[in-house]
């Protein structure tokens, strides 16, 4: 199962990682910033396009893979993480990056999120969080504020407190947890690079404004602030999160632990295995 193909590093520029497809994104969408930062990071890490696999579900943000020149898999809504896990576990030499939105990752995909944190297979997960379902035209997502009445599906608000991605990741056992802002391209590229290089499941919540359904998020530009420096102490991380305003950035938690490794065994031939069924004569 492991790669028969050799890694041939070739120096690529940042733009060489972008495909010729014009994104379907609205002008001003935060996701452009993520695409930029991601390609910057891949260029900086000098990972050849063919060694990268970007895996996504469904949503505006989940369209990202096709805008790169890497391998990509744009699967169904909420299932990016298991696809990425299957790939990362069976092809450990690849750079696997799951990407998607807050609805894809925390609503329909919530179960895979918490189990990916626990399983700790070696891939990164970039969530472009705009606290809304962009693609389906503006419904509340798990990270939406409870008093947001902009959705026709919950015209009086969601009646529930927003999902806390970092806190959930921490409780679920993720070893690398960070938050970044799509517009802060260099910082974001830096955090993405650290996530990619981290051995294990690295989760980055990226505040990525939806200019169309959450235009007020354009204010994030003025509001985001550095808040975290990496700790390996869970207690410390929790305490920081209890004071969190949701728009502080940085690496919150970095505590490497062994990556998920499936069972191993001494090699046997198929004939030897078949012989187990034989009846002694």
């Amino acid at each position: 199962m492991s790669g028969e193909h050799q890694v041939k590093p070739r120096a690529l520029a940042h733009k060489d990682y972008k495909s010729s497809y014009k994104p379907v994104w609205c002008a001003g969408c935060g996701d452009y910033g993520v695409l930029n930062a991601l390609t910057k990071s891949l260029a900086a890490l000098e990972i050849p396009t063919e060694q990268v696999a970007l895996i996504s579900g469904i949503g505006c943000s989940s369209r990202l893979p096709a805008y790169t020149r890497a391998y990509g898999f744009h699967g169904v809504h909420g299932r990016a993480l298991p696809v990425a896990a299957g790939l990362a576990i069976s092809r450990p030499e690849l750079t696997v990056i799951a990407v998607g939105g807050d609805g894809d990752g925390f609503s329909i995909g919530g179960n895979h999120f918490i189990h990916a944190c626990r399983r700790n297979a070696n891939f990164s997960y970039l969530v472009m969080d705009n606290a809304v379902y962009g693609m389906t035209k503006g419904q509340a997502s798990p990270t939406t504020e409870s008093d947001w009445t902009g959705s026709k599906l919950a015209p009086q608000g969601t009646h529930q407190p927003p999902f806390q991605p970092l806190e959930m990741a921490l409780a679920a056992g993720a070893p690398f947890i960070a938050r970044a802002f799509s517009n802060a391209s260099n910082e974001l590229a830096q955090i993405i690079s650290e996530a990619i290089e981290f051995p294990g499941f690295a989760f980055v919540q990226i505040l990525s404004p939806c200019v169309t359904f959450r235009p007020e998020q354009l204010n994030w530009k003025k509001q985001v602030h550095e808040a975290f420096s990496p700790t390996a102490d869970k207690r410390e991380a929790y305490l920081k999160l209890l004071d969190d305003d949701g728009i502080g950035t940085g690496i919150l938690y970095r505590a490497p632990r062994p990556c998920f490794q499936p069972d191993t065994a001494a090699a046997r031939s198929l004939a030897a295995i078949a012989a187990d069924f034989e009846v002694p004569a």
Partner: protein
Amino acid sequence: MTEAKEKPPVDSCSLALIGSGGAGVMTAGQILLDAAAEAGYFGLMTRSTGPQVRGGEAAAVLRLGVTPVGCQDDRIDLLVALDWGKAEHFSDELVLDADTVVIADSAEGEPPVWVTDSGARHYAVRLSELAGEHSGLRANIIAVGIVGSLVGLDFECMKNTIKRRLIGKGNLLADVIQTGLQASISAAESLQCAYKLAPPQPQPRWLLTGNEAVGMGALRGGVRFCAAYPITPSTEIQEWLARRLPEVGGCLVQAEDELASINMCIGASFGGGPAMTATSGPGLSLMVEALGLAVATETPLVVVDVMRGGPSTGIPTKSEQADLAIAVYGAHGDAPRLVLAPNGIGDCVTTTQWAVFLAEALQCPAVVLSDQFLGQSRAAITPPKDREWRAERRIAPADISDFQRFRDSSDGISIMGIPGTPGSEYTATGLSHKPSARPSAISADHRLQLDKQLRKLEQFDYGDDWADIEGDGSLGLLTWGSTTQAAREAVARVRADGSAVRLVSLRLIAPLDRVRLARALEGIDRLLVVEQSHGAQFFRYLRAGCELPSHTRSLAEPGPLLLRPGRIAATLRVLEMEQVK
């Protein structure tokens, strides 16, 4: 006694051992099967238990034979009750009659009414007392000795298998086994029982369950990745693969649910490695969205569904063939896929191997429909051959020029880019797309891909394995999957009456090979379609997709009682008498 001994030996006999949980009937049954296999017989053992996880009543039902044994008989020749506990739970499953010999522990008193009403001959035998005389032995082993000697199993084979199964598990000594067995055989001598087997024809045998066989077929086909979520009655496939995959350089991942397991397989397969998951009905229901994704992204994938009684949670521990419709039609949109069905325990190896081969060659998902009967029954069979089928995908070489992942070709199969390979980078998508994989909502693009996804399946030459066709005549029986075994025996009985009958058992369910099927049905003017479902799913599926002889009848029964040869043969005989319009 002498009367019985003089009866001619039989070609097969049916045994049932029953008792409460913990009485050891399953162990006894397994030992008898093992010993028979070692002696050179064929055999089959099915297990029947209550809903309890542990404990509760249990029955081991065996059929041993000189020739291959694929199903249970209509009736039981020899019933052994270690106790009468809740034996009435088995009254509809175990059919007794005046020819049945019933042996029960003498400590247990009278048999229940359904036993006595059958007219079966009843012997009270000191099973537990005898066991008590041999330290460490339990009544179930005494039963093994008695049954074994009544059906004529070789003493050494019995002793060997008991040793293999039991020594080391308690403080049982080899001597005790020897003397206990001898005592049992003496006890059997006073019993009149006309079910001594004809001499075996010793040949290499495999002993395995259908679930293990599926695992073996998967490995032979080339599967190296499995992600799965436990579910009865498929868990043993997963467990077998968890142990074996690492031995061939692969691995199994236990997923958080079936949505994850199938998507993990898709991820692994996207990465180039043949992948499989195994589940049962409820899991398959959860997987249909991803099945459609595999169709649209042309990702090879095998999903084994070990069918159980439905709908919903249904009867998890019993067999039914009622997932055919979802296997064929499950997933929104037009999503053609392969559906295959093994029709015997050995065939679980073959059909799974073929499914892996086909999924890889055709770049699409293949659903393999096994069932609880095949999956959890254990059989002594002729070892299934390793076939030539090895996973082989059409993949892009490094630095290919003008790569288009979904380019159409004469056979509808495209070249796949495998991550790690320079030059064939692309983004697979469940969106409608152009040959380049670029998303598109244009009619011509959509249509091209739909055409190609269907055409590659319909144009492929599946060769002779698409069905098993046996015999000739104007009377036909068309069936699929595990029901084939009882159907084959029914056909043999009708033939023995002097009628010519053709049996067709479909291994390739979808796509339906209309041309070959029409040829296989040529000359048949009366056809019986036999299946184990309430809704006649197979019959309707055939009607939808091909022309059947105008005089076609459906024999469709739900589980949990399996269709038996006698029932099928009787229906065939009625059909034979019917006037063809």
